[in-house]
């Protein structure tokens, strides 16, 4: 749904939208929610946040103007939930959106949230001296003007279906009254960013990096005080330790349980697992170019028929069941099932070893010397697969892939490297193939980054440098489509083109299971942001623990 066609409808929706207020049954329950996490936030300065833990904390501390709804739609503004902005309206040409801030919204120091804060945040986000990570997402925004303190007007350079999403999902209003006096270059190290003053449901209490981060309930939160008294994040780098904290009862919540963790869940039901979709998909990516000479096509993978044959040789169901049991699904294409653009009806390349064998034979790859490896013109059908040492599931998948390839006479070697070297080689194209994973966002735009023909406007993460004109064209049409149905049709065509061309073997989509203590009650968890409803989570007062009394001190 594109704004300029459905403006009236959108307006009606906005006016009808109720502010995110808690119902009568949402009284505070007290208790401290303890979250066990693997990685700490690297910074609490929103523009510089890149990792997921940083997002968790900053989005509990700061409210956005509006947030995507449970349906995770990213086109137009359908389903968006008001946050700091109570309502908004579009101009006739859809190039301007006027946000009306909630007059009750306050910074944690009691100052009202004003339109100037939005304007200031926009300036910070787009200042290259700051180096905001998501600056590109705001490229279509021209400026933010302030007609009055309660009204922020956002002027766009061009109309795009996702302009509203891009702006509200990226930009977090910042407290101009505290920060504007600092030069932009000093912001990243400003003491204000070590003890941030936000606008969200939780206030900052303390942070000991890589150890613990404490937040307390914001009693003055305009949409109602959170039900728990506070949130504490405990960090540990070792995956086993993260889960052990939950199992030991030292933590109430773990963002993601790994398959081995499930074997450890206690029989008494003290800990349960709750699924919430998942936004990741993992694949074996073929490099279209030579690992050593980036200008030369890859001697094996340049052949589409061979890529398809290799795909047919892989039994993804077995890989998924062996590595994840029932905690993942075979991937379909360059997307995750949780995205609204997902399409489960595509025609994939089925697992069929006999077809794979026949195809390889007909392509001239035969095992003439009977060493178990096929060859053609004296060159063996062998390649190396890069795997990051940080990911156990990907390592396991690689081991299974290796055995399955071996069964059809393909020699695959595994190269595990630390994640930094992995990324470095990925970016330089110095690999034959790699087990790569993508964390998608609700928007389909990321698809362009990962799979679009590398160029100035797309393909930044297209490490295999796969290029397909049909795919690019259909995706362009989809992202410019004026109706959701048209967008879907184009995206489906693009995805089908990708699946047919086999730039990668689509392996699996992990299902995320949050682990939680039985005293904790949570609503539905949003797949892209499990933390979005923490203010509504509750802890059974009958199951208080001694640690709940040790509330994080309010500063």
């Amino acid at each position: 749904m594109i704004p300029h066609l459905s403006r009236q409808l959108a307006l009606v929706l906005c006016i009808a939208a109720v502010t995110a207020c808690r119902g009568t049954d949402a009284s505070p329950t007290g208790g401290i929610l303890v979250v066990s996490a693997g990685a700490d936030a690297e910074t609490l300065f929103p523009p510089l946040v890149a990792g997921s833990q940083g997002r968790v904390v900053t989005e509990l501390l700061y409210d956005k103007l509006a947030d995507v709804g449970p349906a995770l739609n990213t086109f137009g503004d359908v389903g968006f939930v008001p946050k700091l902005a109570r309502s908004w309206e579009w101009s006739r040409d859809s190039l301007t959106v006027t946000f009306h801030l909630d007059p009750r919204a306050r910074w944690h120091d009691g100052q009202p949230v004003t339109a100037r804060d939005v304007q200031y945040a926009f300036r910070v986000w787009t200042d290259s001296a700051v180096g905001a990570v998501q600056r590109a997402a705001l490229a279509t925004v021209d400026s933010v003007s302030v007609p009055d303190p309660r009204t922020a007007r956002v002027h766009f350079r061009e109309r795009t279906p996702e302009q509203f999403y891009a702006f509200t999902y990226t930009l977090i209003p910042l407290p101009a009254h505290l920060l504007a006096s600092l030069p932009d270059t000093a912001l990243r190290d400003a003491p204000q960013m070590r003890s941030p003053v936000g606008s969200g449901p939780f206030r900052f209490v303390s942070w000991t990096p890589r150890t613990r981060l404490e937040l307390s309930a914001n009693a003055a939160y305009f949409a109602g005080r959170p039900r728990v008294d506070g949130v504490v994040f405990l960090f540990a780098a070792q995956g086993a330790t993260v889960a052990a904290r939950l199992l030991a009862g030292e933590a109430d919540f773990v963002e993601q349980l790994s398959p081995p963790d499930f074997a450890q869940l206690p029989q008494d039901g003290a800990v349960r697992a709750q699924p919430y979709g998942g936004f990741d998909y993992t694949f074996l990516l073929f490099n279209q170019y030579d690992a050593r000479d980036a200008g030369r096509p890859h001697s094996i993978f340049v052949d589409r028929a061979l890529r398809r044959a290799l795909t047919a040789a892989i039994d993804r169901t077995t890989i998924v069941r062996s590595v994840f049991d029932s905690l993942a699904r075979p991937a379909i294409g360059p997307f995750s099932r949780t995205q609204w653009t997902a399409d489960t009806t595509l025609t994939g390349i089925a697992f069929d070893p006999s077809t794979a064998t026949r195809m390889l034979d007909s392509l001239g790859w035969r095992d003439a010397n009977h060493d178990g490896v096929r060859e053609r013109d004296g060159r063996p059908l062998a390649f190396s697969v890069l795997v990051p040492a940080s990911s156990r599931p990907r390592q396991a998948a690689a081991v299974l892939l290796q055995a399955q390839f071996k069964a059809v006479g393909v020699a695959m070697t595994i190269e595990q490297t630390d994640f930094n070297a992995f990324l470095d080689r990925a970016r330089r194209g110095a690999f034959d193939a790699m087990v790569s994973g993508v964390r998608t966002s609700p928007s389909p735009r990321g698809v362009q980054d990962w799979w679009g023909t590398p160029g100035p406007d797309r393909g930044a993460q297209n490490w295999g440098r796969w290029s397909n004109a049909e795919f690019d064209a259909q995706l362009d049409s989809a992202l410019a489509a004026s109706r959701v149905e048209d967008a879907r049709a184009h995206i489906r065509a693009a995805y089908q083109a990708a699946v047919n061309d086999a730039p990668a073997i689509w392996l699996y989509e992990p299902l995320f299971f949050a682990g939680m203590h039985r005293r904790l009650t949570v609503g539905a968890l949003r797949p892209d942001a499990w933390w979005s409803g923490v203010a509504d989570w509750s802890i059974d007062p009958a199951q208080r623990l001694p640690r709940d009394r040790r509330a994080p001190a309010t500063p």
Partner: protein
Amino acid sequence: MTRQLVARLLHAIAVCAVVATSVFVLLQFAPGDPFATALDGADVPPSVRAEGRARYGFDLPPGERFARWTGALVRGELGYSASRHRAVADVVGDALPRTLLLVGVALVLGFAAGVGIALVQTRHHRRWQDRLFGVLTLGGVAMPEFLVALLAMTWLGARWRLFPVAGIGSLGDAAAWPVWERIVDLLWHLALPAGALALAVASRVARHQRAALLGVMREDYIRTARAKGLGEWNVIVRHALPNAIGPVIALLGLALPSLVGGAVLIERIFGWPGMGLTLFDALLARDYPLILAAVLLATLLAVVARTVTEAVAEFVVPRRAREP
């Protein structure tokens, strides 16, 4: 004495300079990027990464970077850690006391237990006590350290809940607690990591101490002491131990610096963010200023530790010191 001290100091500076240079050179060959993992978002354009590199001077030629870095070092500045968005001095300032505490407690515990075990073994040489501890200490050395830590965390921590699984303190505002409560809480959290580390230290110390004691027990003056009618314990503790403990102290002094960074897996498993883990993370993040600072610190500690242990060994064992 002063001349010796000055010579030592010069030697220490030379050592540090060599380390700094060689680590810097080595890092030039490491593939990767200080911003690779920090800026891994799907839509981080290469231009933003380039800006980041320029901001911290990573785009300069290596020679100039080295000059800048050493210049800052001479002025006492350790630089800025891009992977943590903090000054290196702050990062190290957080991590070093934690490691010193962990390693210090583990060393004291391990040393005491190890010497104790060795004394018992010597007293009951070739009897079942000797053999039992012999097998146990051998196992303590032979078992991979990270496995001991994992087992302790899984069973003593998560299953039986005898000790905290991980972390450096309980929830709440520690600053508001009475001092004794803070100390108890700290020791409570130290139990598993320090215990796991102490197990390894105790096993090594016991094995060395036992060998040293048995060597001394053959000496003439021990026979003299026995002939004077002293009890066997008395002979071992009063006469044999002071002459056998020197090499063990020297061994500890040599072990200390590598323990400071070498407890990395224990620190990782027990969520104890000390120097080992900091250096490990910095290596993976290619956080050059942090790596260099941590390595230099370890070198410095090594020099200090050696000087101190030499002094202690001289103090404890005056007889040995006079020997050629």
